[in-house]
C-alpha cells in the first residue's frame, strides 16, 4: 500500500493510476457525503462527479501536510456542496410529507427498533448548525475518524467530539419530534 505522501506526489503530477486509486477508494464515501447534505439523488450524482473532476483540475495545488488524501477530497466536496446550495438559494429541499416513518422513543425496547432512511436523516440534519452537520456528514457518510475530521475542519479533537455529541443529541430530539408530529396527524385522521 502506497503512503499518502507518495500518493500526493503522484496526484500533483496528474498520474492517471493515482487518480484511479483515489477515485475507487473514495467514490462511494464522497457520494454518501454529498447525498446526505444535498438529499436529491440526481443532484448528488452530478456533484460527486464534479468533485473528482475538480480534484483533477486542482491537483497541482495539493501539498503534503500530513493529512490523508481523502481529507482533500472531502474539502473539495464541502466547497462544492456549499457553492451548489448557495446557487440554488435554499437549505432544505425535503418536505415532511415525503419522509418515511421513524420509530424513536425513550423506552429502551422501542429505541432498539429505530429505523430511519437517508431522506429523513437529511431532513433532520437541516436543523443542525453548519458545524454540527459537517461533523455528522464526515463521520457517518465519509467514514472518517474524529482525528481526520478535526484536521479537515481545522478544529481540536475535543471540539469535534463536543460537536458530535451535541449533533447526535439534536438529531435524536429532531427525529423524535418529527415522529411525534406524524403520530399526531395519524391520530387525527383516525378520529
Amino acid at each position, binding site marked *: 500500500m502506497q503512503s499518502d505522501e507518495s500518493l500526493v506526489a503522484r496526484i500533483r503530477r496528474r498520474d492517471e493510476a493515482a487518480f484511479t486509486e483515489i477515485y475507487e477508494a473514495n467514490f462511494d464515501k464522497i*457520494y454518501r457525503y454529498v*447525498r446526505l447534505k444535498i438529499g436529491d439523488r440526481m443532484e448528488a450524482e452530478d456533484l460527486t462527479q464534479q468533485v473528482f473532476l475538480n480534484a483533477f483540475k486542482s491537483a497541482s495545488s495539493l501539498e503534503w501536510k500530513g493529512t490523508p488524501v481523502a481529507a482533500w477530497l472531502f474539502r473539495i466536496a464541502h466547497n462544492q456542496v456549499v457553492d451548489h446550495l448557495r446557487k440554488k438559494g435554499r437549505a432544505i429541499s425535503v418536505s415532511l410529507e415525503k419522509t418515511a416513518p421513524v420509530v424513536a422513543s425513550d423506552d429502551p425496547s422501542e429505541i432498539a427498533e429505530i429505523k430511519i432512511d437517508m431522506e429523513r436523516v437529511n431532513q433532520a440534519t437541516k436543523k443542525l448548525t453548519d458545524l454540527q452537520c459537517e461533523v455528522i456528514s464526515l463521520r457517518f457518510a465519509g467514514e472518517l475518524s474524529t482525528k481526520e475530521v478535526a484536521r479537515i475542519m481545522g478544529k481540536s479533537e475535543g471540539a469535534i467530539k463536543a460537536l458530535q455529541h451535541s449533533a447526535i443529541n439534536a438529531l435524536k430530539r429532531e427525529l423524535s419530534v418529527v415522529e411525534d408530529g406524524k403520530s399526531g396527524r395519524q391520530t387525527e385522521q383516525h378520529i
Partner: protein
Amino acid sequence: MENREDRLNNIFDECLDRVLKGESIESCLKDYPDFASELEPLLRTSVAIKQASLVKPSEEFRARARYEFREFIAEKAKGKSPAFSFLPRWATVIAIVLAVVLAGSGTVYAASGSMPDSPLYPVKLATEQIRLTFSRSYERKAETCADYMDRRISEIVYLANKGDQKRIAVIVKRLDRRLITLAAMAQATNVSKADEAAKSGAPTLRSAPQAATPAPVPGATTFGVTAECHTTALKAKIANYAASHSAKLKTTLNKAPESVRADVQRAMSIATAGYERALRTLD
C-alpha cells in the same frame, strides 16, 4: 481536570467508533455503567443514522461516472502530452487522417496487425477509435471493445517477449481504459435490452391476457427472446476472452524477463477485475 461533560464526549466518541465497527451497544454500556443511561439513546440514534446513510450509488451511475472520469483524465493527459510518447504528436494526427482517407484500403488492413513498435501502429489505433465511434449500438461497441482487448493482450505478449517495459506500461494503461469502456457499454447494452424486453411485453401484443410468454416463431423477431440471446452471446464472448487472456498472460508471465514481470502482472490484475466487472453488469 476533565469535567463530566468532557468525559462523556470522550466516552461517546470511543463507543461510537466501537459500535460503528460492529461491536454491540451493550458491551459499550457495560464498560461505562455510570454513563449508560445517557449513552444508550445516543448510540441507538447513531446506529440508525449510520444505517440510513449507507446509501450506495446505482450501478448504472457508477459505471457511467467511472467511464466519464477515465475519459476526462485521458483527454487531459493527451492535452498535456501524447498518449503514446514514443511517437511525435504530428505523426498521430497524420495517422488519423490517413486512417480516414485509407479506410478499407490495404494500408489499414496491414496496420490492423501491426505492433506498437511499428510505424503503422498509430493507423491501427486511429482505425479502432473510428470504428468504435461509429458502431451503432452499445452491444456492437461492447463487442468491438472486447475485440480490441484481444489486440492489446497480443501486443503485451509481443512486447513482453521483447522485454520492452516502457511500451508495455503504456499498453496496460490503454487496456485499463478499454475495459472501463467495455463495462460501461455492457451495462448500457443490458439496460437497453431490458427496455426492449419490457416493450415486447407491452399490452399491444396480440396475445390473450392469460397467456404466458408467447413461444418464439422461427424466423420471427420476438424482442425479449432476441435481446436475451444477444446479451448471452456478448457475455459468452467476453467470458471466452477473459479465460483466454488470463491464460495467455499467465504463460507470458512465466517466460517474461524480470524487467517486465511487474507490468504483465498488473495487466493480469486489471484484466481480471475489468472482465469480472463487465460480466457482472450482464448478469
